[in-house]
């Protein structure tokens, strides 16, 4: 019987190697697999390359992973926020590498990674500093920049519900990077609020089909990043 549901987060994290590229879902405070990231900290892998839209909030989740010194390089579009002091402080002293990528290019590089497309040309960033050093070609009298695919060794994502095959549905705007990241990693681990019996998820509404998922962990009541922020004395989210 196929059963991708892990006993606990520790079991799901087994075998993650030092130096891995880890895709982490979420945008702002929506869709962050905070419990999985904390389990990755406990698991101990180091020297990681992390792909996420942002650079963590407060001192939980990705921010805590960065704080723990596990991240060598961050690939992201918008590291700056009112709660990104962990990353900001480390970046200013040269303690972490940053590859800044326009948000749509980031999403498409990950999508390409999952779709077997090694590179593509995009008009985004043509003529700007973020295209520096990249191959440029003209299509239809317009400049396009070559961007390469991103693939992960691991993807950590959050969804609303799963079945034992790993089919996923999401909730509202927490979907964000989940479906593309799920397709682009050798091993994708999804934390979900609910596990449904096989056949109970409406096939017409499944967003991520089971083929992209290797492990599912039930986290019925995930931590709210926002609830953890006022305690830091840094005000409310911008």
């Amino acid at each position, binding site marked *: 019987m196929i059963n991708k549901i892990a006993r606990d987060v520790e079991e799901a994290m087994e075998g993650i190697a030092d130096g891995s590229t880890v895709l982490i879902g979420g*945008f702002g405070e*929506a869709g962050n697999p905070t419990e999985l990231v904390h389990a990755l900290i406990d698991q101990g892998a180091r020297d990681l390359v992390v792909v996420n839209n942002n650079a963590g909030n407060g001192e939980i989740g990705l921010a805590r992973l960065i704080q723990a010194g596990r991240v060598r390089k961050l690939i992201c579009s918008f590291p700056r926020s009112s709660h*990104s002091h962990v990353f900001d402080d480390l970046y200013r002293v040269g303690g972490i590498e940053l590859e800044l990528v326009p948000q749509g290019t980031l999403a498409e590089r990950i999508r390409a990674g999952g779709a077997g497309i090694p590179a593509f040309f995009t008009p985004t960033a043509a003529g700007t*500093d973020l295209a520096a050093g990249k191959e440029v070609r003209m299509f239809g009298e317009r400049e396009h920049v070559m961007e390469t695919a991103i693939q992960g060794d691991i993807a950590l994502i959050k969804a609303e519900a799963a079945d034992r095959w790993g089919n996923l549905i999401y909730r509202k705007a927490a979907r*964000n990077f989940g479906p593309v990241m799920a397709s682009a990693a050798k091993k994708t681990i999804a934390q979900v609020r609910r596990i449904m019996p096989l056949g109970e998820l409406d096939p017409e509404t499944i967003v991520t089909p089971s083929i992209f998922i290797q492990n599912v962990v039930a986290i019925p009541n995930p931590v709210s990043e926002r609830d953890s922020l006022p305690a830091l004395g840094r005000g409310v989210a911008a």
Partner: protein
Amino acid sequence: MTGWTLDQMAARAATDIANGAFVNLGIGLPERVADHVPVGREFILHSENGILGMGPRPAVDDEDMELINAGKKPVTLIAGGAFFHHADSFAMIRGGHIDVCILGAFEVSSGGDIANWSTGNDGVPAVGGAMDLAAGARSVRVLTTHTTKNGKPKLLPRLTLPATGLRVVDRVYTNLAVLEPAGDHFQVLDLAPGIAMEEIVAKTGATVIDGRPA
């Protein structure tokens, strides 16, 4: 009181958006355009994190941090709204499906270049979806004060800050005027109440030409 207030600027920009348009509003000042949709018109708001049919901010008790906008603030979904993943969201942007985007800006050049992602200082750089919007929206419009807090012109012959996009801006709405980048100058399309052309000339770094209908 001369010139437009921030809300009047937003309202002025809203009057130029056609019924049925798919609209993306940048973080900050452009978000106010949503509060000034002219009576009888319907815009469908796109949020880069995966929402079409974004509605206004909810009551505090109804806030849901899984329903937020690009600025990470809680929003609502109106009837007809839909959710989708990030690659689809930027396919809408890059693929030319967004009719209008309204961005904030540090600088706009008379050639239609925009700078709004980097102040060129040592701080932590952040770009988000600005370059994708600049490259992909069918019409890129800018909503910004005419000058910086220190009174320096934001509308210039050439950018001094790192570009977000080149030759993409169609129209600029400021507290003093509505202008169109026209190559080697800005064409003035409309003036705010109590504002004369002389003031626009004085507060614009590039050449301006009065292009208002006679």
